[in-house]
């Protein structure tokens, strides 16, 4: 393992089997020689296993019922408002549940998705740069082909 420093950070990767053979061997050599590392490894293992033993979480039944209903898609904004209402408000809302609004996915306004034209904007900048600055060096960057990606 010549390209990486042997640091304690490797212990979790060692536990998770995310090291190559060389790094793994280096860590095991260090573990054999260092009680501190062995202690840390045990602690990290315990913590990791405890997190992994956390049970799966099911959402409330009514939540999934709303999500999975055939022609009902929950309006997120309304849902958030509903959850933040005080208890008396919930009673009123419960009474009106039968009149729940059916809103399609498309009713939720979606922001405009933009992907800047990197090459074009790069040239636009160079064009503006050439005004009041060195012209040829700025224009040269426009004249060469732009290459992005590998």
């Amino acid at each position, binding site marked *: 393992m010549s390209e990486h420093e042997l640091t304690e950070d490797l212990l979790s990767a060692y536990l998770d089997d995310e090291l190559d053979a060389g790094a793994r061997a280096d860590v095991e050599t260090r573990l054999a020689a260092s009680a501190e590392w062995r202690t840390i490894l045990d602690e990290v293992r*315990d913590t990791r296993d405890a997190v992994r033993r956390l049970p799966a979480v099911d959402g409330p039944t009514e939540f999934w019922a709303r999500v999975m209903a055939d022609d009902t898609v929950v309006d997120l904004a309304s849902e958030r408002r509903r959850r933040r209402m005080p208890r008396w408000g919930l009673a009123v809302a419960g009474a009106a549940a039968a009149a729940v609004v059916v809103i399609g996915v498309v009713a939720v306004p979606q922001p405009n998705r933009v992907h800047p034209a990197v090459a074009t904007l790069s040239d636009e900048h160079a064009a503006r740069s050439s005004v009041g600055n060195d012209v040829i060096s700025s224009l040269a960057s426009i004249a060469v082909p732009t290459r992005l990606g590998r």
Partner: protein
Amino acid sequence: MADGIPTWEEVARDYGRFLYTVAYRLAGNDDDAQDLVQEALLRVRRGLERYEPGSLEGWLARIVTNLFLDDMRRRKRRPTSALPDDPDRVVPPTPAADESSRELPAHLQEALAALPEDFRVPVVLCDVADQSYEQIASTLGVPVGTVRSRIHRGRRLLRTTLTEGAS
């Protein structure tokens, strides 16, 4: 499922628990987890036509993680501090020998929710969503070495939080 691509209903039915678990472990409460899951399922509905059969759980974990991180940024609206380089600044020195008990106290979820999200997210993706370091690196847009470091420091910080809470 056609051509290896599930329907939206299949995703919600078969992976809903997975989605909710990851969302809950990230957000730490039901309200936020429900918002994340609903938004994630909307994205799934829109994105299924572009989905290339592969690791569905990885794809779903990525969606809910990005939604969680976007939500965190919106809420904070303040700069993110650089992570400390020295692990000793995150984790106190090795506890005394009499604290050798390997049993962790309860309230693990609270301790997890208290982790800074830069540590919590990779720990959850690794230990709850069962993602590889490479998948996590791809989701977060950071190198694998960063993932390795954050997972380890996150676990150590979690351990410290739990043992200090117990004492």
